């Protein structure tokens, strides 16, 4: 194993607890509340922050986000690649800290998608303004149908079944039922019959866009969170043990003649991230993988090398991804995921937060002695243009 670089660590985390703010808070207010709680979690304060990472989803820009927080950062990064923006931010923050351009980086997220009644999955809107949209928007492709086309092709090429895809929904719901915030989220969002689910429950739920069923689709919540990333000397004095960023990878992928939509940009970002970390997928205790839909996780598990391409369906069978089967492979989305805990539109920050909880030993579905985690975000649309951000994390 190569020598790991421990240039930067997650030292503070906060997940905004409510998934339904009933229109009484703005995304920026959620971001600021989360930032102050994450700083308190780290034992730091506003004036310690010299790097701001922001996807612009709250309405502030690179020009105004520092003003809203009342900060004077020397590094400002407004990368927005969709839901995986926070994996990109973590990668960039680590590089800025390693280059001594920043010592304490603040990543925040806030959204009121539920209060706004945003039809993210079924509204049928395009990406807006990109020339290719002008050739695609007439077809009425919903976001869910976009992902469903990946699932359909995966089934066609590899014989993957709906029952196999359902395993992902079942595992995340199992974890959600142990997370009081996730249970309250499902109550607040008026989920019916809130309990652990079976494969039959999932495949018998309503079809939204063939072959994806209702219980294979993430919720639309309000929410947000914050992550503090700091230099090693800062991290040593923080309240919690550091969670080290060991490796990162970034990539995008887009439609082309002959492109294979059963593989994602994770094929590119994964080896870069794992290579830099000097560890492999088989060593991961925790897999925090963006579960917008069941097929997103299955595709990315294969792409990251947990199993060969096309074998993911068989590989996930039998509850392998549950937190209480650590000998069989990584525990998946132990907070309950976007499927059953929190998805306000851009879930990437929660992947970092729950991975950090696991490596601190604080998860509600804790894997005993968890040492290594991968947080992989997928932004945009898996079946067309999307981004991939891989972050490999290690305990102290």
């Amino acid at each position: 194993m190569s020598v790991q670089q421990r240039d930067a660590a997650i030292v503070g985390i906060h997940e905004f607890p409510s998934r339904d703010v009933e229109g009484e808070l703005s995304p920026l207010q959620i971001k600021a509340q989360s930032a102050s709680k994450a700083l308190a979690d780290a034992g730091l304060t506003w004036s310690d922050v010299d790097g701001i990472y922001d996807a612009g989803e709250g309405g502030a820009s690179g020009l105004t986000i520092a003003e809203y927080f009342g900060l004077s950062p020397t590094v400002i990064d407004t990368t927005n690649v969709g839901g995986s923006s926070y994996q990109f931010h973590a990668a960039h923050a680590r590089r800025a800290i390693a280059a001594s351009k920043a010592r304490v980086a603040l990543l925040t997220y806030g959204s009121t998608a539920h209060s706004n009644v945003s039809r993210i999955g079924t509204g049928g809107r395009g990406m807006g303004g990109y020339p290719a949209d002008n050739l695609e928007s007439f077809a009425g492709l919903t976001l869910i149908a976009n992902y469903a086309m990946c699932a359909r092709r995966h089934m066609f090429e590899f014989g993957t079944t709906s029952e196999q895809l359902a395993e992902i929904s079942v595992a995340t719901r199992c974890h959600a039922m142990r997370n009081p915030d996730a249970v309250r989220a499902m109550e607040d969002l008026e989920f019916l019959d809130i309990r652990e689910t079976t494969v039959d429950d999932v495949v018998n739920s309503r079809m939204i866009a063939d072959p994806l069923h209702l219980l294979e689709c993430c919720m639309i919540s309000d929410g947000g969170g914050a992550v503090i990333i700091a230099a090693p000397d800062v991290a040593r004095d923080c309240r919690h043990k550091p969670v080290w960023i060991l490796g990162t990878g970034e990539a995008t992928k887009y439609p082309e003649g002959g492109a294979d939509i059963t593989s994602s940009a994770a094929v590119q970002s994964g080896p870069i991230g794992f290579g830099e970390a000097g560890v492999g997928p088989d060593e991961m205790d925790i897999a925090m993988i963006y579960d917008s839909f069941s097929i997103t996780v299955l595709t990315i598990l294969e792409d990251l090398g947990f199993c060969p391409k096309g074998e993911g369906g068989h590989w996930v069978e039998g509850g392998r991804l549950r937190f209480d089967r650590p000998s069989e492979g990584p525990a998946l989305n132990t907070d309950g995921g976007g499927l059953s805990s929190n998805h306000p539109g851009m879930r990437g920050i929660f992947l970092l937060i729950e991975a950090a909880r696991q490596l601190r030993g604080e998860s509600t579905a804790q894997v005993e002695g968890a040492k290594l985690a991968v947080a992989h975000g997928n932004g945009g649309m898996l079946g067309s243009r999307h981004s991939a951000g891989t972050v490999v994390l290690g305990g102290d």
Partner: protein
Amino acid sequence: MTEPTRPLPNFEESDTAPFWEGTRDRQLRFQRCNDCDTVIFHPRRHCVGCLGHDLIWHDASGQGTVYSYSIVRQSYHPFFRQHVPYVVAWVDLDEGPRLLSNVVGIGDPSSDVHCGMAVRVEWEPHGDYAIPLFRPL
């Protein structure tokens, strides 16, 4: 109250206008680089295979195969919600480009569409222009 209509493209958008111009003659156009033969789709002004800008427009035969598809059963779009269930598909034209479109002219979408199915373009007129949809061969 006016009937909701299919969302139409901006027929004059700079990169894609020549494609839509072709639909006035019911031609399904794509670009190929005159220097390196790379097929370019969606349309642009530059080659992505070499540093050239000499892109030639070609007319596709209109025949292709369904690469993948989904049956949309829930949509909140004012037009498409009236048409569920309907089929969206990535269609691979025989000449190489991959188009997003609808498969029409089928009975039960649950049984009458599959990956690898041969299809041919069918035009839906909108004024002088037309939208390329696909129908089983």
